[in-house]
């Protein structure tokens, strides 16, 4: 039986600078179905839906709604066509009430006067019909994250949409709230509305969807009806088969002694939700422990805690005998931790300062760079000259504003600064994201060199190739927990199993 096509996107292409986010994607939404867009971060799911919602303009391709070709230039156009979207980050005015937020931006039937009575009646209808419980007169700031999401959904429904796009809606919800949300979604479906559910979580996708479209690196790698597939197959489609294992030389450090020990570490994220649920692991001397996992599963918080910019709520981190959790960045650097942060532009460097200052910024207050209250710029500049030669950092001079360097060279600046201090332990988060192949290989080489010289390295990366390329052991994180650790000196990596663990569908016992 052929179902009615509500939305059809044909050959959608979208590039950001040199990055192809959507490469000729075809995507259909049928009436009264829940279709999931499954994929890792950066696969192009959100981009595709933002094109449909009029937030991005496509480079090429066509969109049909109810069989008619349409141009969608803004969310307003999308809403007029019956398409609504709930973003990962909400777009509500915190100081206004639920009711005010819902009618914000809509023309009022009473002209210049707002018709609150009418709006309230419709709002109550929607709340009752779909079980979206929320107090219309509560101010947004008083609401929980789950309630705010409901307000966003109500907002869309109030605008009479037929297709509702939800971007990672469960990321911010508690399990109970997820259940509530799923109930609501099933009511929509019964009424003939369609839902696009963006997610990277296999279990949820298997639970709620009728159909699943899998994206990887901007292309559709598969489309399955729920009945004809299973988590294993989806994991493979999501992660990809072509991942080739590169065997690296064995580490030169033979004795396995734990260098960094993490014990029962618990931490909150910026939204005050528990992001690390009491994890324990250790990194040995002379090894790279790679952390695999879809972004947003606690890696960022782990990085922050180790780097000293997020206080854990409980647990310990020991570097040799020293406790480092809860210490300041300066103390942590002094204890021998080298930090290559994910956010190199906003954390790792101060782009408006000259290059030579960025090369010493983590230790400018140590001799020979300063003495008493004074800084010895002569010795700093000499040191900076040496580093840019040693690490082949391309720059007009060491005096330029750091901002003028290219991405790869910026990362080399951080690398040079960190490695120049011969740290015992290095945390490297997304060390090669956005870099060209040359810079990437150079950085990999340097990290392996540091490992061979006995440093312990915690490598956090969304790039599975990178994790597989560099790691001696692979740890998979999902929802703030460790799903398992694969020791490659003992076993080969099973890609499917890795994919399942990353998507939360399989858990190993962690010894």
């Amino acid at each position, binding site marked *: 039986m052929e179902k009615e096509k509500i939305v059809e996107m044909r050959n959608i292409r979208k590039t950001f600078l040199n990055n192809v986010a959507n490469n000729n994607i075809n995507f259909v939404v049928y009436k009264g179905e829940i279709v999931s867009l499954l994929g890792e971060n950066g696969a192009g799911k959100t981009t595709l839906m933002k094109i449909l919602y009029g937030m991005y303009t496509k480079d090429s391709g066509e969109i049909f709604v109810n069989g008619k070709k349409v141009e969608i*230039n*803004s969310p307003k156009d999308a809403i007029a066509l019956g398409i609504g979207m709930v973003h990962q980050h909400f777009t509500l005015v915190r100081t206004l009430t639920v009711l005010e937020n819902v009618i914000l931006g809509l023309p009022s039937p009473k002209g210049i006067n707002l018709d609150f009575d009418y709006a309230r009646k419709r709002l109550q209808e929607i709340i009752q019909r779909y079980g979206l419980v929320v107090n219309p007169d509560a101010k947004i700031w008083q609401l929980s994250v789950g309630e705010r999401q409901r307000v966003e959904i109500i907002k869309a429904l109030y605008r009479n949409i037929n297709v509702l796009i939800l971007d990672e809606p469960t990321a911010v919800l508690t399990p109970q709230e997820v259940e509530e949300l799923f109930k609501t979604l099933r009511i929509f479906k019964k009424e003939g509305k369609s839902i696009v559910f963006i997610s990277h979580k296999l279990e949820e996708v298997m639970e709620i969807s009728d159909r699943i479209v899998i994206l990887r690196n901007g292309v559709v790698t598969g489309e399955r009806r729920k009945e004809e597939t299973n988590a294993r197959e989806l994991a493979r489609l999501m992660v990809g088969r072509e991942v080739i294992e590169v065997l690296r030389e064995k580490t030169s450090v033979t004795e396995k002694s734990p260098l960094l020990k993490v014990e029962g570490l618990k931490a909150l994220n910026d939204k005050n939700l528990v992001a690390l649920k009491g994890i324990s692991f250790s990194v040995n001397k002379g090894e790279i422990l790679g952390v695999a996992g879809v972004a947003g599963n606690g890696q960022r918080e782990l990085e922050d805690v180790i*780097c000293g*910019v997020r206080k854990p709520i409980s647990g310990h981190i020991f570097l040799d005998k020293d406790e480092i959790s809860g210490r*300041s*960045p*300066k103390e942590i*650097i002094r204890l021998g931790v080298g930090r290559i*942060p994910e956010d190199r532009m*906003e*954390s*790792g*460097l*101060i*782009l*408006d*300062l000259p290059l030579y*200052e960025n090369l010493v*910024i*983590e230790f*400018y*207050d140590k001799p020979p760079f*300063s003495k008493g*209250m*004074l*800084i010895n*710029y002569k010795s700093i500049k000499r040191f900076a000259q040496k580093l840019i030669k040693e690490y082949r950092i391309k720059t007009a001079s060491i005096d330029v504003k750091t901002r003028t360097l290219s991405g790869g060279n910026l990362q080399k600046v951080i690398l040079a600064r960190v490695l120049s201090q011969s740290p015992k332990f290095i945390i490297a988060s997304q060390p090669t994201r956005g870099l060209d192949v040359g810079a990437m290989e150079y950085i990999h080489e340097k990290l392996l060199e540091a490992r061979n010289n006995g440093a312990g390295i915690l490598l956090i990366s969304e790039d599975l190739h990178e994790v597989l390329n560099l790691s001696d052991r692979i740890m998979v994180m999902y929802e703030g927990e460790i799903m398992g650790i694969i020791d490659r000196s003992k076993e080969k990596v099973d890609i499917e199993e890795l994919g399942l663990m990353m998507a939360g569908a399989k858990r190993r016992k962690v010894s």
Partner: protein
Amino acid sequence: MSWPTIKLEKRLPPPVWFQVLTPVIAVFISLLISAIFILILGKNPITAFYYILKGSIGTWFAFKEMLVKAAPLILTGVAVAIAFIAKYWNIGAEGQLYAGALAAAWIGMLNLPLPKPVYILLVITVGFIAGAIWSGIPGYLKAKLKVDDVVTTLLMNYIMIYTVSALLNGPWRNPVTMYPSSTPIAQNARFPIIIPRSRVHFGLIISLLAVLFMYFLVRKTKLGFEIRATGANPSAAKFLGIDTIKSIIVISIISGGIAGLAGVGEVAGVHYHLIRGLSPGYGYSGIIIAMLGRLNSIGVLLAAIYFAIIINGAQFMSITLNIPSYIATVIQGITLIVMLAMLLLFEYRIKIGRSK
């Protein structure tokens, strides 16, 4: 219905030589705009600008008076500039100036049996501390509790200005003249005159030392590096191990102290007692001077001298041409707006289009 849309788009920064020239261009543009106002008043702007120069640097006497005016402007300019480098938005130099003046007058009126150098040093120290406290409070609130510094520093100006007013109308009122001004400070507490037969006092030397201090602080010291890093990107600075809270608190204290010295100079070098209206807005002018000087020590020095010329010259011009001397304030305001607009246009270009 369609409205034209105005958008700001990022652009590449202009070459360095142009950035150095910016203040000069800003001054030029602001004078052009001011000329329009003078024309509206029915006077010839060229004549007006001639009298401004004549009244401020045209004679040896006028030049010396200009230096008297420059001293507090340099100090407030430096005070604001070092604060702004750390992005501590100290709008409160005016209040800190009054705090310094109040403290200097208090110590000066005690008539302590001290030799002149010691007494002067004491007056300076106490004035510095008073300004430092008045700025340290909002600095601490900003650093520790993220209280908006623009609001606190601005509002604390009024607290201090009215406190001074209350004192002068109450306990400190001059019992002989019954004017709202304090009794004179001790002879030994007064700054020496450094150019004979003029009002140019020791405060000018202090202000030049402050410029030197700023140069040294920013370019040579750890604290200077820390405030530059904190100002450029506070979260990155924190990540990289800089104690941004300490940097902001320390610089707020130093900034307020230097602004306090401007008040000390006015009391101990010019008036010899505390009066209402001691400062015709030196603290606020300091903000414009800091911006016009591009937060650079030499730039601040030049900008302060330019302002001293405008302020004193406008007074002379207004008497000669019968134009309100408020034109000086107008020129100051326009200069700031032009400067800010130019700094904005360094980073963005304006794009006007039509919305769909």
